[in-house]
Protein backbone atom coordinates (compact mmCIF):
# COMPACT_ATOMS: atom_id res chain seq x y z
CA UNK A 1 0.00 0.00 0.00
CA UNK A 2 2.83 2.32 0.91
CA UNK A 3 4.35 1.53 -2.47
CA UNK A 4 1.20 2.53 -4.31
CA UNK A 5 0.96 5.71 -2.30
CA UNK A 6 4.59 6.58 -2.97
CA UNK A 7 4.14 5.90 -6.68
CA UNK A 8 1.11 8.18 -6.81
CA UNK A 9 3.00 10.98 -5.04
CA UNK A 10 5.97 10.55 -7.31
CA UNK A 11 3.86 10.54 -10.48
CA UNK A 12 1.94 13.60 -9.34
CA UNK A 13 5.12 15.48 -8.47
CA UNK A 14 6.98 14.80 -11.71
CA UNK A 15 3.79 15.12 -13.73
CA UNK A 16 3.05 18.56 -12.35
CA UNK A 17 6.63 19.73 -12.95
CA UNK A 18 6.36 18.54 -16.56
CA UNK A 19 2.95 20.19 -16.87
CA UNK A 20 4.34 23.57 -15.76
CA UNK A 21 6.97 23.47 -18.49
CA UNK A 22 4.40 22.34 -21.05
CA UNK A 23 2.03 25.11 -20.08
CA UNK A 24 4.62 27.88 -20.16
CA UNK A 25 5.65 26.78 -23.62
CA UNK A 26 2.17 26.16 -25.01
CA UNK A 27 0.15 29.08 -23.66
CA UNK A 28 1.71 31.45 -26.18
CA UNK A 29 0.88 29.03 -28.95
CA UNK A 30 -2.75 28.87 -27.86
CA UNK A 31 -3.04 32.65 -27.75
CA UNK A 32 -1.34 33.29 -31.09
CA UNK A 33 -3.38 30.58 -32.74
CA UNK A 34 -6.58 31.90 -31.21
CA UNK A 35 -5.81 35.59 -31.68
CA UNK A 36 -4.37 35.54 -35.15
CA UNK A 37 -5.92 32.29 -36.35
CA UNK A 38 -2.43 31.28 -37.24
CA UNK A 39 -1.24 27.67 -37.40
CA UNK A 40 2.21 28.19 -35.92
CA UNK A 41 4.16 24.97 -36.09
CA UNK A 42 7.39 26.86 -35.32
CA UNK A 43 6.49 27.72 -31.74
CA UNK A 44 8.90 25.14 -30.37
CA UNK A 45 11.73 27.04 -32.06
CA UNK A 46 11.32 29.85 -29.55
CA UNK A 47 11.36 27.43 -26.63
CA UNK A 48 14.53 25.83 -28.00
CA UNK A 49 16.06 29.27 -28.52
CA UNK A 50 15.31 30.12 -24.90
CA UNK A 51 16.98 26.91 -23.77
CA UNK A 52 20.05 27.57 -25.90
CA UNK A 53 20.47 31.20 -24.86
CA UNK A 54 20.05 30.31 -21.20
CA UNK A 55 22.49 27.38 -21.20
CA UNK A 56 25.06 29.38 -23.16
CA UNK A 57 24.89 32.35 -20.79
CA UNK A 58 24.83 30.14 -17.73
CA UNK A 59 27.47 27.57 -18.70
CA UNK A 60 29.86 29.59 -20.85
CA UNK A 61 29.63 33.11 -19.45
CA UNK A 62 28.87 32.36 -15.82
CA UNK A 63 25.75 34.52 -15.79
CA UNK A 64 23.71 33.73 -12.65
CA UNK A 65 20.92 31.27 -13.38
CA UNK A 66 17.86 33.51 -12.75
CA UNK A 67 19.40 36.31 -14.79
CA UNK A 68 20.26 33.92 -17.63
CA UNK A 69 16.65 32.70 -17.73
CA UNK A 70 15.28 36.23 -17.74
CA UNK A 71 17.68 37.38 -20.46
CA UNK A 72 16.75 34.35 -22.57
CA UNK A 73 13.06 35.16 -22.32
CA UNK A 74 13.57 38.84 -23.14
CA UNK A 75 15.99 38.24 -26.01
CA UNK A 76 13.76 35.62 -27.63
CA UNK A 77 10.59 37.62 -27.07
CA UNK A 78 12.12 40.74 -28.60
CA UNK A 79 13.73 38.82 -31.44
CA UNK A 80 10.46 37.15 -32.30
CA UNK A 81 8.87 40.54 -32.99
CA UNK A 82 11.23 40.94 -35.94
CA UNK A 83 10.04 37.60 -37.29
CA UNK A 84 6.44 38.52 -36.64
CA UNK A 85 6.76 41.80 -38.52
CA UNK A 86 8.65 40.40 -41.51
CA UNK A 87 7.22 36.91 -41.98
CA UNK A 88 4.25 35.96 -39.83
CA UNK A 89 2.33 39.13 -40.60
CA UNK A 90 2.13 38.35 -44.30
CA UNK A 91 0.16 35.20 -43.61
CA UNK A 92 -2.49 36.42 -41.16
CA UNK A 93 -5.92 35.50 -42.36
CA UNK A 94 -4.36 33.63 -45.25
CA UNK A 95 -4.38 30.03 -46.31
CA UNK A 96 -3.74 27.59 -43.46
CA UNK A 97 -1.53 25.52 -45.67
CA UNK A 98 0.75 28.48 -46.39
CA UNK A 99 1.07 29.04 -42.66
CA UNK A 100 1.92 25.40 -42.10
CA UNK A 101 4.62 25.55 -44.76
CA UNK A 102 6.09 28.85 -43.68
CA UNK A 103 6.42 27.71 -40.10
CA UNK A 104 7.75 24.27 -41.07
CA UNK A 105 10.37 26.09 -43.14
CA UNK A 106 11.31 28.10 -40.05
CA UNK A 107 11.62 24.87 -38.06
CA UNK A 108 13.94 23.40 -40.67
CA UNK A 109 16.09 26.51 -40.79
CA UNK A 110 16.26 26.58 -37.00
CA UNK A 111 17.41 22.97 -36.89
CA UNK A 112 20.30 23.72 -39.23
CA UNK A 113 21.06 26.98 -37.44
CA UNK A 114 21.16 25.33 -34.03
CA UNK A 115 23.45 22.62 -35.37
CA UNK A 116 25.71 25.24 -36.87
CA UNK A 117 25.99 27.34 -33.71
CA UNK A 118 25.70 24.81 -30.90
CA UNK A 119 26.51 21.50 -32.59
CA UNK A 120 24.33 18.43 -32.71
CA UNK A 121 24.89 17.51 -29.06
CA UNK A 122 22.26 18.21 -26.47
CA UNK A 123 22.86 21.50 -24.63
CA UNK A 124 24.28 20.59 -21.19
CA UNK A 125 21.96 21.56 -18.37
CA UNK A 126 23.16 21.34 -14.78
CA UNK A 127 21.05 23.22 -12.26
CA UNK A 128 23.01 25.73 -10.16
CA UNK A 129 24.29 24.29 -6.86
CA UNK A 130 21.54 25.80 -4.76
CA UNK A 131 18.92 24.08 -6.92
CA UNK A 132 20.75 20.75 -7.23
CA UNK A 133 20.23 17.78 -4.97
CA UNK A 134 17.16 16.81 -3.02
CA UNK A 135 14.71 18.66 -0.88
CA UNK A 136 12.66 17.09 1.88
CA UNK A 137 8.91 17.64 1.75
CA UNK A 138 6.34 15.86 3.91
CA UNK A 139 8.98 13.36 4.93
CA UNK A 140 10.05 12.44 1.41
CA UNK A 141 12.92 13.49 -0.81
CA UNK A 142 12.24 15.26 -4.08
CA UNK A 143 14.67 16.68 -6.65
CA UNK A 144 15.08 20.34 -5.72
CA UNK A 145 15.14 21.53 -9.29
CA UNK A 146 11.79 19.98 -10.13
CA UNK A 147 10.28 21.47 -7.00
CA UNK A 148 11.69 24.81 -8.10
CA UNK A 149 10.04 24.39 -11.53
CA UNK A 150 6.68 23.77 -9.89
CA UNK A 151 7.00 26.83 -7.67
CA UNK A 152 8.35 29.08 -10.42
CA UNK A 153 5.68 27.82 -12.81
CA UNK A 154 2.93 28.46 -10.32
CA UNK A 155 4.19 32.00 -9.70
CA UNK A 156 4.44 32.74 -13.42
CA UNK A 157 1.01 31.32 -14.15
CA UNK A 158 -0.51 33.39 -11.35
CA UNK A 159 1.20 36.52 -12.62
CA UNK A 160 0.08 35.83 -16.17
CA UNK A 161 -3.52 35.21 -15.22
CA UNK A 162 -3.64 38.21 -12.90
CA UNK A 163 -2.10 40.36 -15.60
CA UNK A 164 -4.63 39.26 -18.18
CA UNK A 165 -7.55 39.57 -15.78
CA UNK A 166 -6.71 42.81 -14.01
CA UNK A 167 -4.74 45.04 -16.35
CA UNK A 168 -5.96 47.20 -19.16
CA UNK A 169 -3.61 45.48 -21.59
CA UNK A 170 -4.93 42.10 -20.49
CA UNK A 171 -8.47 43.26 -21.10
CA UNK A 172 -7.50 44.38 -24.60
CA UNK A 173 -5.92 41.03 -25.37
CA UNK A 174 -8.97 39.18 -24.11
CA UNK A 175 -11.21 41.42 -26.15
CA UNK A 176 -9.17 40.82 -29.29
CA UNK A 177 -9.12 37.06 -28.77
CA UNK A 178 -12.87 36.97 -28.23
CA UNK A 179 -13.80 39.16 -31.16
CA UNK A 180 -11.12 40.82 -33.22
CA UNK A 181 -13.40 42.95 -35.38
CA UNK A 182 -15.36 44.25 -32.44
CA UNK A 183 -12.14 45.04 -30.62
CA UNK A 184 -10.89 46.93 -33.65
CA UNK A 185 -14.06 48.90 -33.97
CA UNK A 186 -13.91 50.12 -30.39
CA UNK A 187 -10.48 51.52 -31.17
CA UNK A 188 -8.05 48.86 -30.00
CA UNK A 189 -4.91 48.86 -32.11
CA UNK A 190 -4.95 45.13 -32.80
CA UNK A 191 -1.88 45.29 -35.02
CA UNK A 192 0.52 46.33 -32.29
CA UNK A 193 -1.43 44.20 -29.86
CA UNK A 194 -0.62 41.21 -32.08
CA UNK A 195 3.06 42.01 -31.98
CA UNK A 196 3.02 42.41 -28.22
CA UNK A 197 1.05 39.22 -27.65
CA UNK A 198 3.32 37.33 -30.00
CA UNK A 199 6.37 38.56 -28.09
CA UNK A 200 4.73 37.65 -24.80
CA UNK A 201 3.91 34.17 -26.07
CA UNK A 202 7.36 33.49 -27.44
CA UNK A 203 8.99 35.00 -24.35
CA UNK A 204 7.00 32.61 -22.18
CA UNK A 205 7.94 29.75 -24.47
CA UNK A 206 11.60 30.73 -24.09
CA UNK A 207 11.11 30.80 -20.35
CA UNK A 208 9.56 27.34 -20.48
CA UNK A 209 12.31 26.06 -22.74
CA UNK A 210 15.01 27.49 -20.46
CA UNK A 211 13.49 26.31 -17.17
CA UNK A 212 12.50 22.98 -18.66
CA UNK A 213 15.84 22.21 -20.31
CA UNK A 214 16.33 19.48 -17.74
CA UNK A 215 13.01 17.77 -18.56
CA UNK A 216 12.89 18.46 -22.30
CA UNK A 217 16.54 18.40 -23.37
CA UNK A 218 17.49 21.15 -25.79
CA UNK A 219 18.97 19.88 -29.06
CA UNK A 220 18.69 20.91 -32.72
CA UNK A 221 15.62 18.76 -33.45
CA UNK A 222 13.76 20.10 -30.39
CA UNK A 223 11.10 22.07 -32.25
CA UNK A 224 10.26 19.16 -34.54
CA UNK A 225 10.38 16.38 -31.97
CA UNK A 226 8.25 18.18 -29.41
CA UNK A 227 5.91 19.78 -31.94
CA UNK A 228 3.24 17.13 -31.48
CA UNK A 229 3.38 17.50 -27.71
CA UNK A 230 2.85 21.27 -27.79
CA UNK A 231 0.09 21.01 -30.37
CA UNK A 232 -1.69 18.38 -28.31
CA UNK A 233 -1.69 20.65 -25.27
CA UNK A 234 -3.19 23.48 -27.29
CA UNK A 235 -5.73 21.36 -29.15
CA UNK A 236 -6.88 19.59 -25.99
CA UNK A 237 -6.99 22.82 -23.99
CA UNK A 238 -8.97 24.70 -26.57
CA UNK A 239 -7.62 27.17 -29.11
CA UNK A 240 -7.37 30.74 -27.99
CA UNK A 241 -8.02 29.98 -24.36
CA UNK A 242 -5.54 30.92 -21.66
CA UNK A 243 -6.65 28.63 -18.87
CA UNK A 244 -7.51 25.70 -21.12
CA UNK A 245 -3.92 24.74 -21.94
CA UNK A 246 -3.09 24.84 -18.23
CA UNK A 247 -5.54 22.09 -17.41
CA UNK A 248 -4.64 20.25 -20.60
CA UNK A 249 -0.97 20.43 -19.63
CA UNK A 250 -1.77 19.16 -16.15
CA UNK A 251 -3.85 16.30 -17.53
CA UNK A 252 -1.32 15.34 -20.19
CA UNK A 253 1.76 15.93 -18.03
CA UNK A 254 0.46 13.72 -15.23
CA UNK A 255 -1.02 11.14 -17.61
CA UNK A 256 2.19 10.92 -19.62
CA UNK A 257 4.30 10.52 -16.48
CA UNK A 258 1.89 7.90 -15.15
CA UNK A 259 1.77 5.88 -18.36
CA UNK A 260 5.53 5.99 -18.82
CA UNK A 261 5.96 4.90 -15.21
CA UNK A 262 3.34 2.16 -15.20
CA UNK A 263 3.54 0.78 -18.77
CA UNK A 264 6.85 1.98 -20.17
CA UNK A 265 6.65 -0.54 -23.02
CA UNK A 266 3.88 1.49 -24.64
CA UNK A 267 5.81 4.75 -24.68
CA UNK A 268 3.71 7.72 -25.75
CA UNK A 269 0.95 5.60 -27.26
CA UNK A 270 -1.55 6.30 -24.49
CA UNK A 271 -1.11 10.04 -24.65
CA UNK A 272 -1.97 10.02 -28.31
CA UNK A 273 -4.93 7.73 -27.71
CA UNK A 274 -6.14 9.95 -24.88
CA UNK A 275 -5.87 13.02 -27.11
CA UNK A 276 -7.73 11.25 -29.89
CA UNK A 277 -10.60 10.40 -27.56
CA UNK A 278 -10.77 13.90 -26.06
CA UNK A 279 -10.80 15.56 -29.47
CA UNK A 280 -13.40 13.09 -30.64
CA UNK A 281 -15.76 14.01 -27.84
CA UNK A 282 -14.85 17.70 -27.78
CA UNK A 283 -13.45 18.77 -31.15
CA UNK A 284 -12.89 22.32 -29.86
CA UNK A 285 -10.88 21.07 -26.89
CA UNK A 286 -11.80 20.88 -23.23
CA UNK A 287 -12.26 24.62 -22.81
CA UNK A 288 -12.89 25.74 -26.37
CA UNK A 289 -16.25 27.28 -27.07
CA UNK A 290 -18.41 25.55 -29.61
CA UNK A 291 -18.99 27.74 -32.61
CA UNK A 292 -15.70 29.58 -32.43
CA UNK A 293 -12.69 28.71 -34.47
Amino acid at each position, binding site marked *: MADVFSAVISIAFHGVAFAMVLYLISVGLSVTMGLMGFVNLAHGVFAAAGGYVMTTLFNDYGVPFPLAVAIAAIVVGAGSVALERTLYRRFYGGDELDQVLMT*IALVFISIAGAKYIWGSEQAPMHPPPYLAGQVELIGRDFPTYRAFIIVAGAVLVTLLWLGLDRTRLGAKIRAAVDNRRMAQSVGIDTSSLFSFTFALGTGLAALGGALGAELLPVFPGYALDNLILFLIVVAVGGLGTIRGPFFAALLLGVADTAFKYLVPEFGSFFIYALT*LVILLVRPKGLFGQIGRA
Partner: protein
Amino acid sequence: MSDTPLAAVVAPPPHDRPLPEAVRLLARRHRPRSYEAIPWLVAIAGYFAFPDYLQLGAQVFIAILFALATDLILGYGGVITLGQAAFFGSGAYVCGIVSAHGWTEPLTLVVIGAAAAALVGLVSGFVVLRTSGLTQLMLTLIVAVMLGEAANKATSVTGGANGLQGMVISPILGIFDFDLYGQTAYIYCLVLLFLGWLAVRIIVYSPFGRTLTGIRESEARMHAIGSPVFRRRLTAYVISAALCGVAGALLAETTSLVALDALSFERSGAVVIMLIIGGLGRLYGAFLGVPIYMILQDRFAQADPTYWYFWIGIFLLAIVLFARGGILGLIERAARLVRK
Protein backbone atom coordinates in the same frame (compact mmCIF):
# COMPACT_ATOMS: atom_id res chain seq x y z
CA MET B 1 -41.05 27.05 -75.34
CA SER B 2 -43.50 24.46 -74.10
CA ASP B 3 -44.34 23.24 -77.58
CA THR B 4 -40.71 22.81 -78.61
CA PRO B 5 -40.15 19.09 -79.17
CA LEU B 6 -37.74 17.58 -76.72
CA ALA B 7 -35.50 16.40 -79.55
CA ALA B 8 -34.94 19.96 -80.65
CA VAL B 9 -33.74 20.96 -77.21
CA VAL B 10 -31.42 18.02 -76.78
CA ALA B 11 -30.14 17.84 -80.36
CA PRO B 12 -26.71 19.31 -80.94
CA PRO B 13 -26.73 22.76 -82.49
CA PRO B 14 -26.15 22.85 -86.23
CA HIS B 15 -22.52 22.68 -87.29
CA ASP B 16 -22.43 26.09 -88.84
CA ARG B 17 -23.02 27.71 -85.44
CA PRO B 18 -20.10 27.50 -83.04
CA LEU B 19 -20.70 26.22 -79.52
CA PRO B 20 -20.57 28.81 -76.77
CA GLU B 21 -17.07 29.25 -75.35
CA ALA B 22 -18.05 27.93 -71.91
CA VAL B 23 -19.51 24.75 -73.34
CA ARG B 24 -16.43 24.12 -75.40
CA LEU B 25 -14.22 24.70 -72.39
CA LEU B 26 -16.19 22.23 -70.31
CA ALA B 27 -16.21 19.64 -73.06
CA ARG B 28 -12.47 20.04 -73.59
CA ARG B 29 -11.50 20.08 -69.96
CA HIS B 30 -10.89 16.39 -69.45
CA ARG B 31 -9.44 15.54 -72.88
CA PRO B 32 -5.85 14.36 -72.89
CA ARG B 33 -3.41 17.08 -73.89
CA SER B 34 -0.10 16.60 -75.61
CA TYR B 35 1.97 17.81 -72.66
CA GLU B 36 0.49 15.08 -70.50
CA ALA B 37 2.72 12.60 -72.31
CA ILE B 38 5.89 14.36 -71.15
CA PRO B 39 6.36 12.64 -67.76
CA TRP B 40 5.86 9.21 -69.28
CA LEU B 41 8.25 9.88 -72.16
CA VAL B 42 10.85 11.15 -69.68
CA ALA B 43 10.36 8.04 -67.56
CA ILE B 44 10.80 5.72 -70.53
CA ALA B 45 13.84 7.66 -71.73
CA GLY B 46 15.24 7.49 -68.20
CA TYR B 47 15.21 3.71 -68.35
CA PHE B 48 17.68 3.75 -71.23
CA ALA B 49 19.63 6.88 -70.27
CA PHE B 50 20.42 6.02 -66.65
CA PRO B 51 20.73 2.23 -66.34
CA ASP B 52 22.67 2.67 -63.08
CA TYR B 53 19.94 4.64 -61.40
CA LEU B 54 16.95 2.39 -61.97
CA GLN B 55 16.56 1.54 -58.27
CA LEU B 56 16.47 5.23 -57.46
CA GLY B 57 14.03 5.77 -60.32
CA ALA B 58 11.68 3.18 -58.85
CA GLN B 59 11.82 4.99 -55.50
CA VAL B 60 10.97 8.26 -57.26
CA PHE B 61 7.93 6.64 -58.91
CA ILE B 62 6.77 5.33 -55.55
CA ALA B 63 7.12 8.77 -54.01
CA ILE B 64 5.24 10.31 -56.94
CA LEU B 65 2.38 7.86 -56.48
CA PHE B 66 2.32 8.69 -52.78
CA ALA B 67 2.26 12.41 -53.54
CA LEU B 68 -0.41 11.98 -56.20
CA ALA B 69 -2.62 10.14 -53.72
CA THR B 70 -2.01 12.91 -51.21
CA ASP B 71 -2.90 15.55 -53.81
CA LEU B 72 -6.32 13.95 -54.15
CA ILE B 73 -7.21 14.61 -50.53
CA LEU B 74 -5.09 17.71 -49.89
CA GLY B 75 -5.14 19.57 -53.19
CA TYR B 76 -8.56 18.54 -54.41
CA GLY B 77 -10.26 17.57 -51.15
CA GLY B 78 -8.89 20.50 -49.17
CA VAL B 79 -8.16 18.38 -46.10
CA ILE B 80 -4.97 19.67 -44.51
CA THR B 81 -3.23 16.50 -43.53
CA LEU B 82 0.08 15.82 -41.86
CA GLY B 83 -0.57 12.13 -41.43
CA GLN B 84 -0.51 10.51 -44.85
CA ALA B 85 2.30 8.25 -43.69
CA ALA B 86 -0.34 6.35 -41.70
CA PHE B 87 -1.66 4.91 -44.97
CA PHE B 88 1.69 4.55 -46.67
CA GLY B 89 3.06 2.72 -43.64
CA SER B 90 -0.03 0.54 -43.22
CA GLY B 91 0.26 -0.57 -46.82
CA ALA B 92 3.97 -1.23 -46.47
CA TYR B 93 3.74 -3.09 -43.17
CA VAL B 94 0.73 -5.25 -44.06
CA CYS B 95 2.28 -6.13 -47.42
CA GLY B 96 5.58 -6.93 -45.70
CA ILE B 97 4.07 -8.97 -42.89
CA VAL B 98 1.90 -11.03 -45.23
CA SER B 99 4.86 -11.71 -47.49
CA ALA B 100 7.06 -12.71 -44.54
CA HIS B 101 4.37 -15.23 -43.59
CA GLY B 102 4.48 -17.01 -46.88
CA TRP B 103 2.22 -15.27 -49.41
CA THR B 104 4.69 -13.87 -51.91
CA GLU B 105 2.75 -13.00 -55.07
CA PRO B 106 3.53 -9.29 -55.62
CA LEU B 107 0.33 -8.10 -57.31
CA THR B 108 -2.01 -9.56 -54.72
CA LEU B 109 0.31 -8.17 -52.04
CA VAL B 110 -0.22 -4.70 -53.49
CA VAL B 111 -3.97 -5.23 -53.36
CA ILE B 112 -3.72 -6.45 -49.77
CA GLY B 113 -1.62 -3.42 -48.82
CA ALA B 114 -4.08 -1.09 -50.50
CA ALA B 115 -7.01 -2.75 -48.74
CA ALA B 116 -5.32 -2.42 -45.36
CA ALA B 117 -4.56 1.25 -45.96
CA ALA B 118 -8.12 1.84 -47.16
CA LEU B 119 -9.43 0.31 -43.96
CA VAL B 120 -7.21 2.59 -41.88
CA GLY B 121 -8.45 5.47 -44.01
CA LEU B 122 -12.08 4.53 -43.48
CA VAL B 123 -11.78 4.23 -39.72
CA SER B 124 -9.60 7.30 -39.20
CA GLY B 125 -11.45 9.32 -41.82
CA PHE B 126 -14.65 8.74 -39.94
CA VAL B 127 -13.07 10.54 -37.01
CA VAL B 128 -10.80 13.04 -38.73
CA LEU B 129 -13.29 14.39 -41.24
CA ARG B 130 -15.83 15.30 -38.58
CA THR B 131 -13.54 18.09 -37.46
CA SER B 132 -11.88 21.02 -39.18
CA GLY B 133 -8.94 23.40 -38.91
CA LEU B 134 -6.28 22.74 -36.32
CA THR B 135 -8.19 19.87 -34.74
CA GLN B 136 -8.29 18.09 -38.07
CA LEU B 137 -4.58 18.68 -38.66
CA MET B 138 -3.86 17.33 -35.18
CA LEU B 139 -6.00 14.25 -35.66
CA THR B 140 -4.33 13.29 -38.94
CA LEU B 141 -1.00 13.74 -37.20
CA ILE B 142 -2.02 11.75 -34.14
CA VAL B 143 -3.35 8.82 -36.15
CA ALA B 144 0.02 8.53 -37.89
CA VAL B 145 2.16 8.86 -34.76
CA MET B 146 -0.06 6.38 -32.93
CA LEU B 147 0.43 3.79 -35.65
CA GLY B 148 4.15 4.58 -35.66
CA GLU B 149 4.32 4.13 -31.91
CA ALA B 150 2.34 0.87 -32.16
CA ALA B 151 4.66 -0.46 -34.89
CA ASN B 152 7.65 0.55 -32.79
CA LYS B 153 6.44 -1.39 -29.76
CA ALA B 154 4.93 -4.45 -31.46
CA THR B 155 8.36 -5.86 -32.19
CA SER B 156 7.18 -9.46 -32.53
CA VAL B 157 5.02 -8.52 -35.52
CA THR B 158 6.82 -5.58 -37.10
CA GLY B 159 10.42 -6.03 -36.02
CA GLY B 160 10.23 -2.68 -34.24
CA ALA B 161 13.21 -0.40 -34.65
CA ASN B 162 15.16 -3.08 -36.52
CA GLY B 163 12.63 -3.08 -39.32
CA LEU B 164 10.64 -5.95 -40.71
CA GLN B 165 12.86 -8.74 -41.97
CA GLY B 166 12.32 -11.95 -43.85
CA MET B 167 10.24 -10.67 -46.74
CA VAL B 168 10.12 -12.89 -49.81
CA ILE B 169 8.70 -11.63 -53.08
CA SER B 170 7.95 -13.93 -56.01
CA PRO B 171 8.58 -12.86 -59.60
CA ILE B 172 5.87 -10.63 -61.05
CA LEU B 173 3.29 -12.74 -62.97
CA GLY B 174 5.67 -15.60 -62.26
CA ILE B 175 8.09 -14.31 -64.92
CA PHE B 176 9.89 -11.07 -63.96
CA ASP B 177 12.11 -11.46 -60.95
CA PHE B 178 13.25 -8.40 -59.02
CA ASP B 179 16.85 -7.95 -60.14
CA LEU B 180 19.83 -6.22 -58.60
CA TYR B 181 19.83 -3.41 -61.16
CA GLY B 182 16.21 -2.57 -60.54
CA GLN B 183 15.07 -3.05 -64.14
CA THR B 184 12.01 -4.97 -63.05
CA ALA B 185 11.34 -2.62 -60.14
CA TYR B 186 11.57 0.40 -62.45
CA ILE B 187 9.08 -0.88 -64.98
CA TYR B 188 6.79 -2.41 -62.36
CA CYS B 189 6.58 0.83 -60.37
CA LEU B 190 6.18 2.88 -63.54
CA VAL B 191 3.25 0.75 -64.70
CA LEU B 192 1.54 0.95 -61.32
CA LEU B 193 2.19 4.68 -61.15
CA PHE B 194 0.59 5.05 -64.56
CA LEU B 195 -2.47 3.11 -63.43
CA GLY B 196 -2.66 5.15 -60.25
CA TRP B 197 -2.34 8.38 -62.20
CA LEU B 198 -5.06 7.23 -64.60
CA ALA B 199 -7.35 6.53 -61.65
CA VAL B 200 -6.69 9.91 -60.07
CA ARG B 201 -7.13 11.69 -63.40
CA ILE B 202 -10.47 10.03 -64.02
CA ILE B 203 -11.56 10.83 -60.47
CA VAL B 204 -10.66 14.52 -60.49
CA TYR B 205 -12.39 15.15 -63.82
CA SER B 206 -15.48 13.17 -62.86
CA PRO B 207 -18.57 14.77 -61.32
CA PHE B 208 -17.36 13.29 -58.05
CA GLY B 209 -14.08 15.17 -58.44
CA ARG B 210 -15.95 18.39 -59.13
CA THR B 211 -17.91 17.88 -55.93
CA LEU B 212 -14.64 17.53 -54.05
CA THR B 213 -13.31 20.76 -55.47
CA GLY B 214 -16.63 22.38 -54.65
CA ILE B 215 -16.36 21.25 -51.03
CA ARG B 216 -12.81 22.61 -50.88
CA GLU B 217 -13.93 25.98 -52.18
CA SER B 218 -17.05 26.32 -50.08
CA GLU B 219 -18.33 23.63 -47.78
CA ALA B 220 -21.39 25.69 -46.85
CA ARG B 221 -22.52 26.11 -50.44
CA MET B 222 -22.11 22.42 -51.18
CA HIS B 223 -24.24 21.67 -48.15
CA ALA B 224 -26.77 24.17 -49.43
CA ILE B 225 -27.11 22.50 -52.82
CA GLY B 226 -27.62 19.17 -51.12
CA SER B 227 -24.25 17.53 -51.67
CA PRO B 228 -23.48 14.82 -49.12
CA VAL B 229 -20.29 16.59 -48.01
CA PHE B 230 -19.11 14.15 -45.37
CA ARG B 231 -19.69 11.06 -47.50
CA ARG B 232 -17.92 12.57 -50.51
CA ARG B 233 -14.95 13.55 -48.44
CA LEU B 234 -14.79 10.18 -46.74
CA THR B 235 -14.88 8.43 -50.11
CA ALA B 236 -12.01 10.57 -51.35
CA TYR B 237 -10.13 9.98 -48.11
CA VAL B 238 -10.44 6.21 -48.49
CA ILE B 239 -9.40 6.28 -52.16
CA SER B 240 -6.41 8.44 -51.29
CA ALA B 241 -5.51 6.08 -48.45
CA ALA B 242 -5.73 3.04 -50.72
CA LEU B 243 -3.39 4.65 -53.27
CA CYS B 244 -0.97 5.60 -50.50
CA GLY B 245 -1.15 1.96 -49.45
CA VAL B 246 -0.23 0.88 -52.98
CA ALA B 247 2.81 3.16 -52.81
CA GLY B 248 3.76 1.73 -49.43
CA ALA B 249 3.37 -1.86 -50.65
CA LEU B 250 5.55 -1.05 -53.66
CA LEU B 251 8.26 0.29 -51.38
CA ALA B 252 8.11 -2.89 -49.30
CA GLU B 253 8.30 -5.11 -52.39
CA THR B 254 11.09 -3.27 -54.18
CA THR B 255 13.32 -2.91 -51.11
CA SER B 256 12.28 -6.12 -49.31
CA LEU B 257 12.32 -4.13 -46.11
CA VAL B 258 9.89 -2.10 -44.07
CA ALA B 259 11.29 0.24 -41.45
CA LEU B 260 9.61 2.55 -38.96
CA ASP B 261 10.26 5.58 -41.16
CA ALA B 262 7.41 4.34 -43.40
CA LEU B 263 5.10 5.67 -40.69
CA SER B 264 7.15 8.67 -39.63
CA PHE B 265 6.06 12.28 -39.35
CA GLU B 266 8.96 13.17 -41.64
CA ARG B 267 7.37 11.14 -44.40
CA SER B 268 3.98 12.80 -43.93
CA GLY B 269 5.60 16.22 -43.91
CA ALA B 270 7.92 15.57 -46.84
CA VAL B 271 5.12 14.43 -49.13
CA VAL B 272 3.19 17.63 -48.47
CA ILE B 273 6.32 19.70 -49.08
CA MET B 274 7.03 17.88 -52.34
CA LEU B 275 3.48 18.57 -53.50
CA ILE B 276 3.68 22.24 -52.62
CA ILE B 277 6.95 22.60 -54.48
CA GLY B 278 5.39 21.10 -57.58
CA GLY B 279 1.99 22.71 -57.26
CA LEU B 280 -1.01 21.58 -55.28
CA GLY B 281 -4.28 20.35 -56.81
CA ARG B 282 -2.86 20.37 -60.31
CA LEU B 283 -2.49 16.65 -60.97
CA TYR B 284 1.11 17.14 -62.14
CA GLY B 285 2.53 18.80 -59.05
CA ALA B 286 3.70 15.42 -57.82
CA PHE B 287 5.57 14.75 -61.05
CA LEU B 288 7.60 17.94 -60.67
CA GLY B 289 7.86 18.35 -56.93
CA VAL B 290 8.94 14.82 -56.02
CA PRO B 291 11.93 14.54 -58.40
CA ILE B 292 13.06 18.08 -57.55
CA TYR B 293 12.87 17.41 -53.84
CA MET B 294 14.60 14.05 -54.10
CA ILE B 295 17.35 15.34 -56.36
CA LEU B 296 17.94 18.36 -54.13
CA GLN B 297 17.98 16.13 -51.08
CA ASP B 298 20.46 13.83 -52.75
CA ARG B 299 22.74 16.74 -53.81
CA PHE B 300 22.62 18.68 -50.56
CA ALA B 301 22.89 15.60 -48.42
CA GLN B 302 26.01 14.59 -50.34
CA ALA B 303 27.60 18.01 -50.19
CA ASP B 304 26.63 18.81 -46.64
CA PRO B 305 24.24 16.44 -44.90
CA THR B 306 23.92 18.67 -41.85
CA TYR B 307 22.50 21.64 -43.64
CA TRP B 308 20.03 19.89 -45.89
CA TYR B 309 17.37 21.20 -43.55
CA PHE B 310 18.61 24.74 -43.99
CA TRP B 311 18.37 24.72 -47.75
CA ILE B 312 15.03 22.97 -47.92
CA GLY B 313 13.78 25.51 -45.39
CA ILE B 314 14.98 28.45 -47.48
CA PHE B 315 13.57 26.84 -50.60
CA LEU B 316 10.19 26.36 -48.92
CA LEU B 317 10.13 29.92 -47.65
CA ALA B 318 10.85 31.18 -51.15
CA ILE B 319 8.00 29.07 -52.53
CA VAL B 320 5.50 30.26 -49.93
CA LEU B 321 6.55 33.90 -50.24
CA PHE B 322 7.06 34.26 -53.97
CA ALA B 323 5.68 31.26 -55.80
CA ARG B 324 2.31 30.26 -54.38
CA GLY B 325 1.02 27.42 -56.46
CA GLY B 326 4.50 25.95 -56.69
CA ILE B 327 6.42 25.48 -59.90
CA LEU B 328 3.30 24.65 -61.90
CA GLY B 329 1.73 27.84 -60.57
CA LEU B 330 4.73 29.78 -61.88
CA ILE B 331 4.48 28.08 -65.24
CA GLU B 332 0.77 28.90 -65.42
CA ARG B 333 1.47 32.54 -64.65
CA ALA B 334 4.24 32.70 -67.22
CA ALA B 335 1.98 31.11 -69.83
CA ARG B 336 -0.73 33.66 -69.08
CA LEU B 337 1.78 36.51 -69.53
CA VAL B 338 3.00 35.11 -72.84
CA ARG B 339 -0.56 34.74 -74.13
CA LYS B 340 -1.27 38.38 -73.32
